[in-house]
């Protein structure tokens, strides 16, 4: 009898502990390559720290005060948000729309589905090189095409908003297909009987999309919005490769936060302390925006969905 209880206890322990053991490799790895650098960056940010010279004196919050006082900080913050909004918002909307189309009964489904992922396979640096040539101010293809329909050339490397648009185009080119596939996978997991019930109730396709598909996608929308927020606010490759100098333009028209961080740490100032301070400020901003996004998406996506459906989405 007692041996049975011991085995039972063991088995209960197994049920309770095993999941944590299985998931622990990720967290151990994360602690080493994620958490440790994160905390170390905080340590660096309160010191004078030179790129090559290394650790200097403890300076408290001086680095934070310094960067917040620099003109370029505000510029970088504005640019980052502008590029982020110009890329993420159209991207998520387009991705849902394309996913809905791909979810329909198409011929050669796999072909279309793989097709949308194709730009994602191209290395971002290659994308930037090609697009920066397309968007060259005097010799670029885009301005040449605009000229043929009588529009004056746009200063894609001099005008602030135009440069953001060009960079957002690169980001969208690369990431829309990726997000589409995530949405598509989620759409296919929506139980078909919900649609059948909706059809019986006489709902149009449009109504079905808004009242069944979108609410059922809530968890996925939150996931995509949060990942693209994190990615969008950390954007670096595309703007860095947008011209040959990689500084973000003579007036820092397209210098993002991460490029600013790079400029502080590796550019003229060579101050790792300040760069680390910017990294932490960026971290804070991303957390705040992530929370806002989370709340917003929760509200929007659960809009007028029936209770039963919401439960299903959570399961």
């Amino acid at each position, binding site marked *: 009898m007692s041996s049975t209880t011991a085995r039972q206890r063991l088995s209960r322990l197994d049920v309770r502990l095993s999941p944590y053991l299985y998931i622990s490799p990720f967290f151990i790895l994360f602690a080493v390559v994620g958490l440790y650098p994160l905390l170390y960056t905080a340590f660096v940010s309160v010191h004078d720290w030179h*790129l*090559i*010279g290394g650790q200097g004196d403890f300076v408290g919050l001086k680095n934070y005060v*310094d960067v917040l006082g*620099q*003109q*370029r900080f505000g510029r970088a913050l504005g640019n980052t948000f502008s590029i982020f909004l110009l890329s993420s918002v159209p991207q998520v909307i387009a991705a849902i729309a394309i996913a809905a189309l791909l979810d329909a009964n198409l011929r050669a489904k796999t072909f279309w589905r793989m097709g949308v992922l194709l730009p994602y396979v191209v*290395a*971002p640096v290659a994308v930037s090189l090609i697009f*920066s*040539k397309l968007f*060259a*101010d*005097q*010799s*670029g293809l885009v301005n040449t095409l605009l000229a043929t329909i009588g529009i004056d050339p746009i*200063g894609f*490397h*001099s005008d*602030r908003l135009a440069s953001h648009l060009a960079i957002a185009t690169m980001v969208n080119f690369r990431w829309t297909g990726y997000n589409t596939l*995530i949405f598509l*996978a*989620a759409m296919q*997991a929506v139980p078909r009987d919900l649609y059948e019930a909706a059809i019986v109730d006489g709902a149009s396709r449009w109504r079905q999309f808004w009242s069944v598909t979108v609410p059922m996608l809530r*968890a*996925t929308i939150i*996931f995509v919005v949060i*990942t693209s927020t994190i990615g969008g606010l950390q954007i670096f490759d595309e703007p860095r490769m947008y*011209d*040959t*100098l*990689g*500084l973000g*333009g*003579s*007036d820092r*028209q397209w210098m993002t936060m991460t490029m600013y961080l790079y400029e502080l740490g*590796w*550019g*003229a*100032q*060579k*101050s790792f302390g300040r760069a680390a301070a910017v990294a932490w400020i960026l971290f804070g901003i991303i957390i705040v925006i992530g929370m806002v996004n989370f709340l917003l998406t929760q509200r929007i996506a659960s809009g007028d969905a029936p209770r039963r459906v919401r439960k299903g*989405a959570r*399961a």
Partner: protein
Amino acid sequence: MHKSRIGALAAISALAITLSACGGANTGSTPAPGGSAAPATSDEKITLTVATFNEFGYEELVKEYTTLNPNVIVEHKKAATADEARDNLNTRLAAGSGLADIEAIEVDWVPEMMQYADKFVDLKDDAVKGRWLDWKEAAATTPDGKLMGYGTDIGPEAICYRADMFEAAGLPSDRAEVAKLLDGGWDKYFTVGKDFVAKSDAAWFDAADGVFQGMINQIETPFENADGTPIPLGENTEIKKVYDQVITAAVTDDLSADLAQWSTDWSTAFQNDGFATMLCPGWMLGVIEGNAEGVEGWDIADVFPGGGGNWGGSYLTVPTQGAHPEEAKKLAAWLTAPEQQLKAFASKGTFPSQKEALASPELLKSTNAFFNDAPTGQILTNRANAVSVTPFKGPNYFAIRALTSDAINRADVDKTDDPEASWAKAVAAYGDLGLS
């Protein structure tokens, strides 16, 4: 259940992709660092990497070295711009690994790198004693007598021009006559430019920032006092004067093609007859030839506004982090030997800094087919002899120079600010540097 699993999968794959993307960014590391720390024995094959930028003319030379030394495979990595190479150097110097066995550095970075002289192998060697022009060698020698790098080239500046466009605008096009036409100060150069643009659709010069560089290379102490302390940009009247002069010529008189050097538009403009002249230090000849491939009419005149000037020129250094410092030093010494430098000059116009090469009849006789068979050896030697000022460039030269470059490009290329506002921004950015 389904959905969260998909979400988790996506999260994991996203993570994997990010991680692999990070790995991918680390291209071009040295082969097996530490793995072969032992000195190479005679029959052991080793690979040495040489990192350069722009055009050094080493393509054939690295092959030749392997032919001479079958056990040494030389890999040549070229960065498109000097800034890119400098970023790479700084990053990997800080990281302590990832640099090539031989890293080329520009003369302007040397004072900065001297602060970390212990990260470079001391290349002092009796075998190469007195190989270079005294000032070239002195610039790379630390106060305690360590030699940071072997000199490759120097950049005596001449004027490169498009003979066909000069002719079309009714200006003399023969290189001796052009030299006479442009003889004088910068005012003269700009005055002839005004005359040219009045009769031509093209611009007079490519980029205001390039002209600015030529002008500050004639100033004794451009951005820093001789003791190394920076001159606050807002109080630097000499630089402000040069800035005003360049901007007036470029913007008010519209002599500039409104290009930023090294940009896509700049490279393309060589093919589109965008401008008629440009300042050309020896190493620029290879750049022009590359960008203007197939274009006829380039020539070079034995003249430079305001006398002579030296722009750039490089050194080969051996970072201590490499696995084969001795072999790398041997290769660097070989690459910078007069005979090899003459070959590099023949290939890409990188003008030698080695005394023996400068005196060689081979150099004086050499011509450049792309520049209408101009006697480039003789012209650049004359230009080198005309250099009278060696500007002092300290550890902060680069940082401050970059601010002025932004200021000029804002006013000349991007037109985001008028000249005064653009200058004010540069002065504000100087404050952000936190120098002094």
